[in-house]
């Protein structure tokens, strides 16, 4: 953590003087936006999909003439989910490319480490991936967070499962990092409000691939409700191990893995897995309308890569674009921030309307509990 802080501080000191020009990135014909995300490695699954959402929002507005006659252009930097590279990329985007605004600061940990640079520069920045409370509590003038915290999402999921499966024995497997800690806090909150009987609880090291011993302990403890707190590969391994051991606990996963590819990789054992999300399922009416829009502006290959992160990237960028539109005649950072703060909530249909306030930099989206359907490789809200 000290290393990350040190990097952030060093990067801050190294920012070019005079960088904080309010209208940088704007010419008579073009507005330049920038973002950092993982485009390679396993987290590329979310970074690539997010990037498609931002590009979709830009293509849509460009097709309608842009903002004040200016076309929007995006520079996307790949950080591979490595914080030091996030900081370097942000320095380049702000200081060298001189983008007008940022549409992503990568994942939660990367965004947290980037805060000093972003706050000092004053550049409007959207955070639609990994919304953690420290990013918006206390609110920073120019950082706008969209979505729902991991803690609240898990809190709601745990409360639902406690109500649905009263008296069940619970098992909890969490990752030993900020992500796992956030999920753990959500479960703790739920335990204060509901009767949850945890009989097995453990943490695993990030990057672990073999979950045989953990799942044997789940079997041995007679777990009936299992919180599989991995991200993607870990949850696949846990569910496949459960299938191998012949146990059938109710399994609940979290939204980073709520993509069809995870169900496909697990196979039939994925049927009935619980999930939680603040984004509409792709099979819903709103999801299908979103896909239709994507087909208009993206290639066939790109449409195939659309997932929930495309929706959050699109929605967040739409909120930014609407704010910029309100400042078309005088496109400055101050005006854009003021419009983000005062604009009525922007409804894209795929998540709760996005809006902020004078002392609120978090657009709080309500969550929905879902269940997987292997046959259609999709998740549907429970009760439907």
């Amino acid at each position, binding site marked *: 953590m000290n290393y990350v802080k040190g990097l952030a501080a060093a990067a801050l000191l190294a920012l070019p003087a005079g960088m904080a020009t309010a209208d940088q990135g704007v010419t008579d014909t073009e507005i330049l936006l920038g973002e950092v995300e993982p485009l390679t490695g*396993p987290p590329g699954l979310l970074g690539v999909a997010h990037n498609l959402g931002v590009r979709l929002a830009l293509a849509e507005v460009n097709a309608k003439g842009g903002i004040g006659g200016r076309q929007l252009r995006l520079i996307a930097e790949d950080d591979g989910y490595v914080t030091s590279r996030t900081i370097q990329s942000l320095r380049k985007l702000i200081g060298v490319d001189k983008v007008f605004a940022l549409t992503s600061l990568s994942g939660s940990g990367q965004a947290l480490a980037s805060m000093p640079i972003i706050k000092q520069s004053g550049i409007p920045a959207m955070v639609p991936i990994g919304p953690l409370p420290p990013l918006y509590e206390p609110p920073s003038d120019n950082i706008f967070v969209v979505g729902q915290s991991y803690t609240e999402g898990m809190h709601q999921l745990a409360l639902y499962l406690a109500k649905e499966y009263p008296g069940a024995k619970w098992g909890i497997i969490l990752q030993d990092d900020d992500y796992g800690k956030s999920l753990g806090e959500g479960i703790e909150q739920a335990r204060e409000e509901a009767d949850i009987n945890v009989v097995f609880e*453990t943490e695993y090291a990030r*990057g*672990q691939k073999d979950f*045989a011993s*953990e799942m044997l302990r789940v079997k041995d403890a007679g777990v009936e409700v299992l919180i599989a707190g991995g991200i993607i*590969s870990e949850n*696949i391994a846990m569910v496949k191990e459960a299938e*191998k051991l012949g146990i059938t606990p109710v399994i609940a996963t979290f939204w980073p893995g709520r993509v069809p590819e995870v169900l496909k990789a*697990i196979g039939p054992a994925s049927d009935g897995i619980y999930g939680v999300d603040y984004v509409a399922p792709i099979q819903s009416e709103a999801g299908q309308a979103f896909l239709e829009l994507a087909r208009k502006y993206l290639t066939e290959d790109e449409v195939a890569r659309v997932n929930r992160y495309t929706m959050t990237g699109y929605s967040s960028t739409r909120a930014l674009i609407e704010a910029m539109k309100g400042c078309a005649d005088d496109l400055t950072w101050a005006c854009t921030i003021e419009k983000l703060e005062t604009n009525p909530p922007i409804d894209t249909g795929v998540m709760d309307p996005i809006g902020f306030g004078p002392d609120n930099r978090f657009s709080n989206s309500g969550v929905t509990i879902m269940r997987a359907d292997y046959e259609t490789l999709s998740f549907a809200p429970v009760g439907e």
Partner: protein
Amino acid sequence: MNYLAELLASGLAVGAVYGLIAMSFAIIYKSTGLLNFAQGEMGMIIAYVAWSISTSVDGNPFIVALGSIGFAVLFALAVERIVIRPMMSEPILSQIMVTIGLSVIFRSAIILIWDGLPHNMAIASGNQLVDLGGVRVRAAQIAVLVALFAAIAGMWAFFRYSRFGVAMRAVASDDATAQLMGVSSGKVQMAAWAAAAVLSGVAGVLFAIAYELSPSLYALGLKAFPATILGGLDAVIGSAVGGLIIGVTENLVGGYISSGLKEVAGFVIIILILMVRPYGLFGEKRIERL
């Protein structure tokens, strides 16, 4: 009792994956004195190629095996000839840095050529569950153990009885003298790289069948390298044993003590063994004559 048996079975299966990749490290080190830090990534690329082949031939195991082995050999020969051999006269640190660079390129290549999504690798009955006296395992987990023991037997016979195997040992022992005796060190290196790629490819493919195929598959190399150190850097068969020890230890610690200690358990064993046997369990003690 069944709990212990299940832990041992899972430990042996994942240990066999580590063991095959560990053998790959050792083969290249034994023949060239080089540590190939891109070994896990090479196994991952071969697994992706196998997946591509399997999706176009409907999972036919024979075509997938032939195609993947053929690719592994050509891939390894290309890397050895184009990147590694020109570096062989350079300082060892530079050679190692080249393999680290290769590992980064190979990881990025996965996203550029394929994608970042997890995939189910359905080849033959690899994913089927088999009941072994109350212990359930996947067919691919049995296959990886069989592959490891076949590789151990094959390597033992190769180094002991074949002329080429003896030549490889000669190059490993003294490169210059072996060349004076007419041994082509270039051919030995090529054979070592090809064999290493095939072994790590088998490990990658069978792991992907049992679990999933994803761009994080390269991490198996990071787990296998300590197994090579444990068995002995120059001990091909010892490295295989090292993999099994680490796999079983991890599972026993995870099953009886704590998951949190699972990742460090293997390293604790390595430290303890290296304190007693600095060249690894089966490594040769080298005597420097002054």
